[in-house]
């Protein structure tokens, strides 16, 4: 039987493939990917070298690189850029960074900062006062949708006659000007077009951006000309691993050194294992809350909102979902904030009987939708506990997992039509920053459709003053607290800390108040 030529070649190809596969797998026996990924550890003090591999949940989005919206973006900003001042983790007392000293004018309408004169951008260009002006103006541009946009836009005058000093002037006093100076990264203007496309991030920070592979990884190398102490690490690699569970798997298999997205449950387990270190950062906080859309007639009666506030077993949520890593709250402020008030913070302690009584005064009301961002395990668990707590006092809810992009759209448009669960930040800064910047609290327009003359007055009064922590300010904060507690358009659940898990080879991790990893001093033990 004559053989048609095509068939044997097919067979031959298969055999060839089999052989090559065998060769490759026998090669594989020589070097193990897992062993190459991890190596033993013994800490003998800071050592130089090594690349820190960080697992991050969300990739960067160039168009919203300054919005604190992803863990990878936070790491990028923290590694590549410097700010003018730095807040310590647990206070609002500014410390020098690119600015060495500063003086606020008596009338609070300007501030003069002395700048370091030994700083260069990664491109080699010298850092001057012009760069401060450019950075503030970038943040004031609404297309970047920076949370502190209103504060940046309130800076109206720039005196850059001295390259190593700058005077900023304002239309009205800004009690949160140091918040802006802490959060604002100093951006290189020459490479700004590439920044918009995600091609280059040029700053003055300890690490130099080298590449970004979308939805895969970001790479950085050490800045050998850093003005501060030279970092120990040779470089940083941020791997985008969107599944928190996969991050844990890869940490365990030695493919990653540090992960930022582990669930509290996994953090608890990793913390018990000697091979891993779990580091909570007390100063970088977020608050989880239940929002109420007052456009829903059922939620308009404050009694129902009070009933919800009494019905929530916040301690259980902290214990069961966040594994004890958090504090139940009624008001957003951490304990070092000038607005913190221990007594007011317990106004709505867990009291299901009181909640039932309030509900019974209301008469009948229909089922209320309770939305949360789908796919987030913490929100899902909190939503289910909230639903169960509310059901126990006679408030029926229907859970609505909403896909993230739609969730944000509903938040902007204020179209939840019911309750929702989310986290907010910014309460650990000067209290006025929260009231003028954080979206759920914005007195002008917020997702709760809460409009109140008194609240707006108090928010503006807190913002437009010279000092954000003197006794006059504290008086205003007390009024703000009363506004928040009386109106309950947003029902706080708990204060949470940023926590990362790392292999025991990683040492001396830090985190800025902004929630950016501080790797200036970090090192990998051999």
């Amino acid at each position, binding site marked *: *039987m004559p053989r048609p030529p*095509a*068939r044997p070649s*097919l*067979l031959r190809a*298969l055999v060839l*493939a*089999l052989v090559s*596969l065998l060769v*490759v*797998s026998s*090669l*594989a026996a*020589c*070097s*193990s*990917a*897992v062993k*190459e*990924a991890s190596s033993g550890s013994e800490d003998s003090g800071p050592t130089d070298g090594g690349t820190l591999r960080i697992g991050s949940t969300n*990739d960067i*989005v*160039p*168009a*919203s690189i300054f*919005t604190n919206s992803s863990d990878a973006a936070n790491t990028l900003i923290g590694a590549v850029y410097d700010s003018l001042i730095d807040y310590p983790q647990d206070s609002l007392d500014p410390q020098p960074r690119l600015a060495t000293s500063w003086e606020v004018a008596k009338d609070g309408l300007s501030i003069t900062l002395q700048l370091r004169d030994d700083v260069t951008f990664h491109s080699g260009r010298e850092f001057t006062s012009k760069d401060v002006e450019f950075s503030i103006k970038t943040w004031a541009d609404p*297309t970047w*949708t*920076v*949370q502190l*946009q209103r504060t940046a836009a309130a800076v109206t005058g720039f005196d850059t006659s001295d390259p190593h000093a700058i005077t900023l002037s304002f239309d009205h006093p800004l009690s949160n000007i140091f918040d802006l100076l802490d959060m604002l990264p100093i951006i290189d203007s020459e490479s700004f077009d590439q920044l918009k*496309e*995600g091609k280059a991030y040029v700053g003055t920070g300890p690490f130099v951006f080298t590449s970004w*592979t*979308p*939805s*895969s990884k970001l790479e950085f190398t050490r800045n050998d000309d850093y003005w501060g102490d030279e970092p120990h690490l040779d470089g940083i690699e941020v*791997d*985008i*691993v*969107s*599944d928190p569970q*996969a991050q844990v*798997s*890869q940490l*365990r*298999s030695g*493919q990653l050194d540090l992960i930022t997205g582990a669930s509290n449950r996994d953090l608890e387990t990793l913390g018990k294992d000697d091979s891993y270190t779990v580091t909570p950062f007390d100063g970088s906080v977020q608050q989880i809350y239940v929002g109420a859309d007052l456009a829903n007639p059922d939620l308009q009666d404050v009694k129902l909102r009070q009933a919800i506030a009494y019905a929530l077993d916040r301690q259980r949520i902290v214990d069961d979902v966040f594994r004890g890593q958090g504090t139940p709250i009624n008001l957003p402020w951490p304990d070092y904030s000038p607005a913190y008030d221990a007594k007011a913070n317990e106004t709505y302690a867990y009291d299901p009987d009181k909640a039932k009584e309030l509900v019974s005064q209301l008469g009948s009301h229909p089922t209320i939708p309770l939305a949360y961002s789908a796919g987030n395990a913490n929100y899902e668990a909190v939503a289910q506990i909230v639903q169960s707590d509310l059901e126990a006092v006679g408030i029926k809810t229907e859970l609505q997992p909403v*896909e*993230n*992009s*739609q969730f*944000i*759209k509903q*938040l*902007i*448009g204020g179209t939840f039509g019911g309750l929702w669960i989310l986290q907010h930040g910014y309460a650990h800064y000067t209290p006025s920053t929260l009231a003028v*910047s954080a*979206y759920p609290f914005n007195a002008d327009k917020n*997702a709760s459709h809460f409009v109140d003359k008194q609240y707006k007055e108090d928010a503006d009064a807190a913002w437009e003053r010279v000092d954000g922590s003197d006794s006059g300010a504290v008086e205003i904060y007390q009024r703000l607290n009363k506004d928040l507690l009386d109106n309950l358009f947003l029902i706080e659940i708990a204060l949470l800390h940023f926590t990362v898990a790392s292999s025991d080879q990683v040492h001396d991790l830090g985190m800025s108040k902004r929630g950016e990893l501080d790797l200036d001093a970090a090192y990998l033990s051999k």
Partner: protein
Amino acid sequence: MTHYLLRRLPSALVVLAVASFGIFAMVRMVPGDPVSTLAGPDATPEARAAIRADLGLDQPLLTQYVHWLGQLAHLDLGTSYRIGGQVKDLVADGAVNTIVLTLTALLLASLAALVCSVLAVVLDNRWVNAALSFGNTLAIALPTFVTGLVLILLFAVVLPVLPAGGTPPDGFIARPDIAAQYLLLPAVCLALGAGAALTRFLTEALRTEMRQPYVTTARALGISRRRIVLTQALRNALPSAVTVLGIQFGTLLGGAVLVEAIFTWPGLGGLIEEAISGRDYPLVQVLLLLSVTVFVVIQLLTDVVHAWLDPRIRIGGTGS
């Protein structure tokens, strides 16, 4: 050959043309828009309007569609709204990973099928058949998310010998030994169902061949069963197996979506999920169109290869 291809081409093109408009319109009918995900919760209405105009989303739908077709004609896939960068590059990066994974799985599946089916037919032993049949049914019945988890648990957690996921740090070429280890678990997970289906098919085709008169003749002449299977039966059974292989390739590409999610393999599956959830229109429409195109092309190629391998179809095709 060419004639046969030409005869099949028009209907394929019609499907693609209809699909392109369908996809374009559907993508824009989905609730939620790219502007809100881009602008974030704190954007002012002016900022959002600026972004909308910047993306050309304030134009009428048909204008946008014609513009997109024009771009496509110049092989310009546009720019991603959300991820940034050229859609072309994003798709190419993802496609490399997905194709490497899928082809490896296809290779594993074909090898497994070849070995198992030949073994079953040559040995023709009751117990071997039962064992193969059982393993086969199980391999089809076990959902990918089950096998994936078990594989990770066994080989990355309990016995940490293989990576739990991710792509090789140095790429596929520089260190093929390392790359093979990264590929192994996801490829096995993906190959399992396809391999089982292929084995079933090939075993059955071989058995049918073995019932042909020429086999009886050959057996009577004293030629061993093994020799008949390897020289004759396999050759005759392969053409139809290639058709099945083609269909399996499409199935594997689809199955890759889940496997990529389980093993955090940055391929097209993750990209399409991210693109849809971010309402990244240019990226979504290209990816969906690509998915349809791949399916249509595979169907076309499978038929053509089938015709090539089996002269009866080819002759019938050109003759009519």
